[in-house]
């Protein structure tokens, strides 16, 4: 795709087109840049998913099974019986329009079918016609639509254009959650082989190797050692984190991007310094080497399948409890699904900080703690020694990631940590943070390159808010607690606000920590000179 200029992308009209929304046709060829490539057959075959094949949404023939309609109907019926959420959300919408301008994809594209209400209507119209009395009798008059191949193609386009961020559900007077609708629509599409490769390849990788990126155990170890080498160079300290160590007190699980790519690796280095600082008895696992869970973007069964490794590994290694790194959708799964799916974790103990003695009672059943909760407690109890001035070149703001904000409510912990480790912290405008935070535009498996135009559009509200604090306060670092953010926000910033970098919270923790026996640090974790206060005042 030839990248569009900012001016071209910003020609956004919120006025709907003349064409009625019930017309499902999508011109995939003309809309390259706003859809994702379908799953490669090999990934579906490995996972045992239906209808593996090579195809493209731009093709006329999507090579669906002959009885695709029956499969979808049967799947729909089954899910109506399994999920009260689905039934209630399909039945109660009054189309009041409160959600319309809350979706970043609508705000960035002006496409009316990106209004959450219409996204849900794509499914709801089929439900109405075939599963409700009024719809069966009145058809189109009751807002019903027949499930045609065009409608299915429209589902593919728009349900792989929702990042399941749940912003709309904050504003809906009935709490209708488009993430729930999208998740179930994707489950239905998976039944006939309509999925995207940027989701299914990580799923297949994760099942096989233990992580989304397909990093095998020896490479896992190499990567960790490489980062330890970097740390040795910066701090003069040799850290040797245990891998698959039986009998450790704590199993630590991070999203795989944190030990794979910039800027996640700096966050990972921050974790390692923190654990060294407090002398934590922990282990990494090359088997449970993924915190994230792309099953969330596939189907409920897949969530469970991938998440299985965490508890299984904790049990095998005989740890007392599990600590989790900075990741967004990982924490949606851990917080809202894991215990129900893979629990009860009765072989673990209620997480207790070996340093402060704090018992984290709010995790009494799941037995899994968020690193920001853990670190906040350490700081509050005065157990960490910081030199926040080492982060003085950064003017920092914090992007609440969708899932931790709206599926958990971890809002203050990361802020508390940040304010303890840096001297310049500024909030973005109220309507763009905390529970009203905007998505990075690349969540739920949409952070791939072929979908770039839609990512940049969906990321516009976030970028706009960053631009505001950049211009007002000179903010030059956007922090977050999500690996997908760390992968997608740099691209977004490069495009919209190129002066601003992206980091995790624990990268700044790592910078600020005064380690026993360390050198005078020549650089911070990303190799930038420390104490370069000029840089901060320049921006």
């Amino acid at each position, binding site marked *: 795709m030839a990248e569009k200029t900012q001016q071209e992308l910003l020609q956004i009209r919120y006025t709907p087109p003349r064409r009625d929304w019930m017309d499902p046709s999508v011109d995939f060829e003309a809309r390259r840049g706003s859809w994702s490539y379908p799953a490669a057959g090999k990934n579906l075959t490995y996972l045992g998913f239906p209808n593996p094949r090579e195809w493209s949404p731009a093709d006329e023939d999507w090579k669906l099974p002959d009885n695709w309609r029956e499969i979808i109907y049967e799947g729909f019926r089954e899910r109506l019986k399994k999920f009260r959420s689905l039934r209630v959300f399909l039945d109660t919408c009054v189309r009041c329009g409160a959600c319309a301008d809350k979706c970043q994809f609508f705000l960035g594209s002006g496409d009316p079918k990106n209004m959450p209400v219409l996204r849900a209507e794509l499914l709801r119209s089929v439900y109405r016609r075939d599963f409700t009395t009024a719809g069966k009798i009145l058809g189109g008059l009751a807002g019903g639509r027949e499930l045609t191949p065009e409608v299915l193609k429209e589902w593919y386009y728009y349900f792989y254009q929702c990042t399941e961020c749940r912003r709309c559900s904050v504003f809906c007077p009935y709490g209708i959650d488009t993430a729930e609708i999208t998740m179930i629509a994707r489950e239905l599409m998976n039944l006939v082989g309509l999925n995207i490769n940027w989701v299914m390849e990580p799923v297949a990788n994760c099942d096989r190797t233990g992580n989304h990126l397909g990093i095998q155990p020896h490479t896992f170890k190499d990567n960790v050692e490489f980062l330890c080498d970097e740390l040795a160079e910066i701090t003069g300290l040799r850290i040797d984190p245990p891998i698959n160590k039986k009998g450790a007190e704590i199993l630590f699980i991070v999203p795989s991007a944190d030990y794979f790519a910039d800027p996640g690796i700096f966050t990972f280095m921050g974790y390692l310094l923190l654990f060294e600082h407090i002398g934590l008895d922990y282990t990494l696992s090359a088997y449970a080497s993924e915190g994230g869970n792309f099953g969330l973007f596939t189907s409920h069964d897949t969530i469970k399948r991938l998440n299985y490794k965490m508890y299984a590994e904790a049990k095998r290694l005989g740890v007392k409890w599990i600590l989790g790194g900075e990741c967004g959708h990982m924490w949606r799964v851990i917080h809202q699904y894991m215990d129900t799916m893979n629990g009860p974790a009765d072989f673990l103990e209620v997480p207790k900080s070996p340093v402060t003695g704090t018992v984290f009672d709010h995790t009494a059943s799941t037995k899994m703690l968020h690193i920001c909760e853990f670190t906040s407690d350490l700081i509050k109890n005065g157990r960490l020694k910081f030199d926040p001035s080492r982060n003085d070149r950064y003017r920092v703001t914090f992007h609440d990631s969708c899932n931790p904000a709206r599926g958990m*409510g971890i809002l203050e912990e990361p802020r508390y940590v940040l304010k303890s480790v840096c001297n310049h912290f500024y909030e973005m405008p109220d309507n763009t943070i905390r529970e009203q935070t905007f998505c990075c535009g690349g969540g739920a498996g949409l952070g791939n390159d072929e979908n770039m135009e839609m990512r940049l559009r969906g990321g516009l509200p976030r970028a706009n808010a960053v631009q505001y604090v950049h211009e007002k306060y000179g903010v030059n670092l956007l922090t977050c607690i999500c690996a997908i953010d760390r992968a997608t926000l740099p691209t977004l910033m490069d495009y919209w606000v190129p002066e601003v970098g992206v980091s995790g919270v624990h990268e700044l923790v790592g910078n600020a920590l005064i380690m026993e026996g360390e050198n005078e640090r020549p650089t911070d974790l990303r190799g930038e000179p420390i104490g370069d206060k000029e840089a901060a005042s320049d921006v």
Partner: protein
Amino acid sequence: MRALTALLVVAVLLGVVWLGAGVAGWHAFFGVAVPYAAVLIFLIGIVWRVVTWARSPVPFRIPTTCGQQRSLDWIPSSTLENPHDGWGVTRRMALEVLLFRSLFRNTRTELTPTKRLVYESDRYLWVAALAFHWSFLVIFLRHLRFFLQPVPQLVTFLESVDGFFQLAVPTLFLSDVLILAALLYLLGRRLLNRQLRYISLPADYFALFLLLAVAITGVLMRYVTKVDLVAAKELAMGLVTFSPKVPTVIGTPFYIHIFFVSVLFAYFPFSKLTHMAGIFLSPTRNLANNNRKRRHVNPWNPEVEVHTYAQWEEDFHDKLVAAGIPLDKE
């Protein structure tokens, strides 16, 4: 177009009752049979609807959290926006149901000519929604005067508050003014706001026209055409005591009014109006965010295929050995 379709349906309904009760004089049918049937359909329909919802389980605990979680003792948690227990949920739900908390958050987003997104608080919908629903409730309760003997004190009290301004004779009820104003605003908004018009279905307009028809006929009867209140009460008391009597002096406007009310009752369970019951069952609002503290049980938790550690160790055996990662099996 969709609005016209809905308006046409309401016009046809008006024609039906005009001809039936007014011209043909089928008073027993429109005064007794139709209301009984409507209430029966309403009761059966709403029970069926709620039972259908309730029969589908809530497999996962998925509250939408709109505030700080309860985690560490020294971080104040937002018990209303992110409740961690039943009491918090009760208060969150009360705020939603009684005051439309989520709608209160509403913002309007604009893209300025300098390409900045600006969010402004937009509470018009919230005000209109509150005005409509609360007026409707007050009017509904005031109507108990016709169905109960003696008239309960609550009803006379409501009337005195509602008619506080004593602006005209008969006393102008505030709720009558508010409900008409609110319905007209909601309709106007649906027609004039282009995004909203785009998403609106005939059913959305139908509900508004039907409610307007109910309200307008009621208001006309009270303030303009005047209905024989004694006769109206006689009919209403007959209905609730299951000894229906049809008074002769009651007049066509009355039949039009109760016909529209009957249609509203019968239509209710099969339409979006069930949001009244649905809100109570919404899993993003009615569950406590205590996920990690208490295990939520999924009644159909399926068995799934997994890649076990033993399989994984076998798959990567040589590489594990080469990397010096400890094995379970040597």
